[in-house]
């Protein structure tokens, strides 16, 4: 069954491009260009996945997530953006987005990412993976909750391969594990990213841009 998708972006040219790139891979049920339009639209349509621009003319993506999620917990969000301060990307992810990809992603990869997010898994762009590795650097941690503030060696390996440009299937082959296991490692990293109190997350994020 095709995934039902809502696009939220204030650039109509870009919306048209995504529509064309995705083609028949998903069913685009609605489009919105602002926070004000998006919130009621998503609540009404109750789609599988919302492709969300981080910055909109009248607010940021996390506002939409915070407004929709309590009423429509089944809707998954995938942030899709062209140029963002890491800080903003982190706040969208902390609001509950299941991943972040850049607008230069190919149509096929985007469709795969939508599928993955709809299934409850997580999607990281290579650069976001690099950022997470940097922020969760081993051996620099003081105090806090190791459960959410440290990455396991396996999670580290998976993230490193994502940063190197490997797709989930390739990672699975490389590490001799199943794709499902790769997905669960990435989801676990996403959870840590959403819950961790590591100060590197905010410090690093204010200094860098995820392009």
């Amino acid at each position: 069954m095709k995934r039902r998708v809502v696009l939220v972006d204030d650039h109509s040219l870009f919306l048209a491009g995504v529509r064309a790139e995705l083609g028949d891979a998903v069913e685009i049920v609605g489009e919105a260009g602002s926070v004000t339009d998006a919130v009621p639209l998503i609540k009404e349509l109750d789609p599988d996945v919302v492709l969300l621009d981080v910055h909109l003319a009248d607010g940021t993506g996390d506002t939409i997530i915070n407004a929709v999620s309590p009423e429509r917990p089944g809707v998954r969000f995938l942030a899709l953006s062209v140029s963002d301060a890491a800080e903003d990307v982190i706040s969208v992810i902390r609001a509950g987005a299941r991943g972040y990809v850049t607008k230069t992603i190919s149509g096929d990869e985007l469709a795969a990412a939508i599928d993955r997010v709809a299934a409850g898994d997580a999607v990281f762009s290579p650069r976001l993976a690099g950022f997470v590795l940097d922020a969760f650097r081993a051996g620099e941690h003081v105090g806090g909750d190791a459960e959410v503030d440290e990455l396991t060696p396996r999670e580290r390996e998976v993230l490193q391969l994502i940063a190197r440009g490997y797709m989930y299937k390739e990672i699975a082959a490389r590490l001799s594990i199943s794709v499902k296991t790769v997905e669960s490692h990435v989801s676990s990293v996403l959870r840590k990213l959403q819950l961790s109190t590591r100060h590197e997350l905010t410090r690093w994020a204010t200094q860098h841009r995820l392009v």
Partner: protein
Amino acid sequence: MPLPAFAPRAEGRVIAGVCAGIAQALDVDVTLVRLVFALLALAGGAGILLYLALWAYATWKAKWLWAALVLAAGVLLLHAVGLSERAVAGIALVAVGLAFAWRDGGKFRLDTPLSYGGLAVAAAGAVLLLGGEGGTTALLAPGAVAGALLLIAGPWLWRLALERDAERDARIRTEERSEVAARVHDSVLQTLALIQRHSSEPRRVAALARRQERELRGWLYEDRPLGDDEASLVAALSAVAADVEELHGVRVELASAGDCAIDDESGALVLAAREAMTNAAKFSGADEIDVYAEVSGDAISVFVRDRGSGFDRSAVPTDRRGLTESIERRLERAGGWAAVLTAPGEGTEVELHLPRRQA
């Protein structure tokens, strides 16, 4: 400076939302606003009238009803703080008079009798106010004259200041706009012209668009997308990636974790990475190359990967020195090593590894 827009808010209201609206317009705590209204309500009910006045104003935009209610509230308030009836009446007359004289947002209209009438009423009010206090008149007179002058000239001076500010803002905006226009002309418009001319060559168009994107980013955000400063490893890799993109019309996606300063050894690593990217761009047939740099406490690793054709190393002629000489030997001399993972049809990944000298 216009007053902040005010509208009653349904959200968080107790009666009609007037207090909540004021709190939002002035960006203060709503409890504070409610407290002020409550205190004013104690002053002979002035707060209640004022509340009604604001509500009436926002609901019906009825100026006269609003003005009358505010006046009544003011009278009650002044009376409550202990002024004599005569003084209150005087002040009320002055207020009404000035409201007539300065109506329509501070435009003193010499051609309307209403303005003169307003001034006359205000003057009568002043006489009433000052005349009644007997002995204190002499003391109050200079202050009253100064106050009257201020009231008459004030709105005019205020408007003058506003106009000057607006003029300065407009000038700054014009300057900004011409700077943006110059930039856009020099870069974006030129690129668009080039793209139109080369529209039949997709790779060239992509490379042009990519270069323009990078330039525009650098200008708009005034920071490098990656790398903390010019002399850092990631910044150098980013520059190399940009060169390769431009020369060969491929996309290079750079990700990184950590960064360090460039020295001779890591400089050699960057050159080797450049060679690896160039090889991928020229021979693999892939249109995207992924580069990942990881800097840890004791080593730097760079991975250059493509999903292209791959190759059989034993089949590469020995006179093709790129891989051996420019990548492997170069890194060995710098104290590191390089590994190539490839097979025909499976793409290629070059791993460059360099131990860091202990500082």
